[in-house]
């Protein structure tokens, strides 16, 4: 295989553009990301503040005013809002997210307990997504307008219309408690291996995403299959397997990579509905419990965490995209 210039011509990729532009692009994206995180923390503070005094009533219990006063002073909610906000921002840098209202546990500990579960769930979901989505997309694109293509397209249309809530309830009602799937998650009572409790929530989350990936993959694959370089590869006499596997699939993965990255960012932030349905001990379930009990410190911490996850992942995707496709960062 010829080395040097030929490769450079065939791949006028990232190296063809001076690194300075990539640098400014990176800087701009990171500054934007930081701004978004600050904006979101401000928004969540304003929103929780508008909910009113968290200690005025705590559920059915009647709390004496003196105790309310002590609680307010203890949690710092008697301070003016700007001051609370700045204190909170300062504390974030020392990984101090406050103490929750219910059990008086450090919020960081609660996150440390649930975040790994959520990340595990997200990764398994994405794995299922890519396996099903890319395979079905390739098949549908290669056999365009065949029975399988129509079949896949119809299933996708139905899947996209199915809300996560309904899919989750359907799976929980029919499969949990049967075979390897636990009726109750291990985190609370019985000990079960992690993979058996992650499968059902992951499938719930994966179905809609996989359907989107099939659509993306099918569309971009069909486009790529009509391109000149595929014709050239065929004309060169490459085997069909090589044309599809090496040239077509690789080049049609770009939209899928983008979509998966953004999707991963959303999943890292916790899937409230799905985790609540399966009582999966992740960020989303913690959040849904925090909402019911008005546990503001937990609420704020999780929102900050999920905004951060979302921003970091989408920034990474943008950078990756700019790296793969130089036209983006030049515009």
């Amino acid at each position: 295989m010829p080395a040097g210039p030929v490769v450079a011509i065939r791949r006028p990729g990232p190296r063809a553009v001076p690194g300075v532009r990539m640098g400014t692009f990176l800087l701009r994206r990171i500054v934007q990301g930081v701004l978004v995180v600050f904006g979101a923390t401000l928004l969540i503070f304003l929103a929780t503040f508008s909910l009113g005094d968290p200690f005025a009533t705590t559920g059915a219990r009647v709390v004496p005013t003196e105790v309310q006063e002590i609680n307010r002073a203890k949690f710092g909610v008697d301070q003016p809002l700007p001051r609370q906000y700045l204190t909170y921002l300062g504390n974030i840098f020392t990984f101090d997210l406050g103490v929750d209202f219910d059990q008086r546990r450090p919020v960081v500990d609660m996150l440390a307990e649930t975040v790994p579960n959520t990340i595990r769930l997200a990764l398994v979901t994405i794995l299922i997504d890519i396996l099903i989505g890319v395979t079905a997309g390739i098949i549908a694109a290669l056999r365009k307008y065949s029975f399988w293509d129509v079949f896949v397209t119809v299933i996708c249309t139905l899947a996209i219309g199915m809300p996560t809530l309904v899919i989750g309830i359907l799976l929980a009602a029919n499969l949990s408690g049967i075979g390897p799937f636990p009726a109750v998650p291990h985190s609370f009572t019985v000990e079960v291996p992690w993979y058996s409790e992650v499968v059902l929530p992951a499938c719930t989350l994966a179905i809609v995403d996989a359907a989107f990936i099939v659509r993306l993959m099918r569309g971009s694959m069909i486009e790529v299959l009509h391109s000149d370089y595929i014709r050239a590869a065929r004309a060169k006499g490459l085997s069909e397997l090589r044309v599809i596997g090496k040239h077509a699939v690789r080049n049609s993965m770009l939209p899928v990579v983008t979509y998966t990255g953004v999707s991963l960012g959303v999943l890292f932030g916790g899937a409230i509905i799905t985790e609540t349905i399966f009582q999966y001990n992740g960020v989303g379930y913690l959040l849904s419990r925090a909402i019911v009990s008005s546990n503001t410190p937990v609420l704020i911490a999780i929102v900050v965490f999920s905004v951060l996850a979302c921003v970091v992942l989408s920034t990474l995707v943008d950078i990756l995209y700019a790296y793969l496709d130089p036209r983006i960062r030049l515009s």
Partner: protein
Amino acid sequence: MAHPLPVGGFPVPPPLPSRRRGQLAEIARRYRRNKLAMVGLGVVALLVFLAVLEPLITPYDPFEQNLRNTMAPPSPAHWFGTDVLGRDLLSAIIYGARLAVLVGLGAVTMALLVGVALGALAGFRGGVTDGIIARVTDVFLAFPALVGAILIVRAFGAGVLPVIVALALVGWPTTARLARGQVLALREAEYVEAARAIGASDPRIVLRHILPNAIAPVLVYAFTSTGGYVVAMASLSYLGVGVPPDVPEWGRLIEQASDFLRVPGKAHLWIFPSLAICLTTLGFAFVADGLRDALDPRLWDRS
């Protein structure tokens, strides 16, 4: 209207039929050819029908509880059975359709108004205005939507209107981004330049020249997202936020059924509300797909 006198004795040709109506008829014709889209339209029409005529067609009062007859299986007296509180499930679901239509269309309309206004402003003005609106949009997009909606509903108190406002407030950024892109692409169009050359004001250019040409994809998106708003309302209720607890709403019905998911003979509790949600989302999705195909396909080239 009196025809002007012909100059030199030539008869004035009759006015051409309105081009606008011609185009609408063409879109309707293309839409009707799409079977799936017609099914979707049928589902949406059924929903609206149920929503409007709800007080007349519900066999029982959807709010009336009968704690002596809870979770009864489907029977001739109660076609869908009764729910956890002994309410007639069919009536409850029809009432839920009313809520779904109200909230879905209400939220989508509000999100559309806010989103198109801000998006058009950002796209047309550009510069600092665009920058500020883009950053605000970014913040709202990165914010977990369901959590935002929950907080807003809790701040306003439970009810239908708070849910609509909350969903619109978390839903507008996508519309804004879409509208901005459309307006941006049209801002330099020749006919806009022509309008500016004859001295049209900025609001006139935006409202009369740019928006009519930019709105089609935005409207299609609006239809696509309507199902999403219905699901969001159901999700809110499932989490115990949203409409008051005694209101028979689809998500609330599912939530009340969730303790009985694996109990044999109680499947009607969650199957019927789930079906209702699915039908709604699919119906709106089919309508949106059909509209997208029926509208001029060239509109989809720019984005």
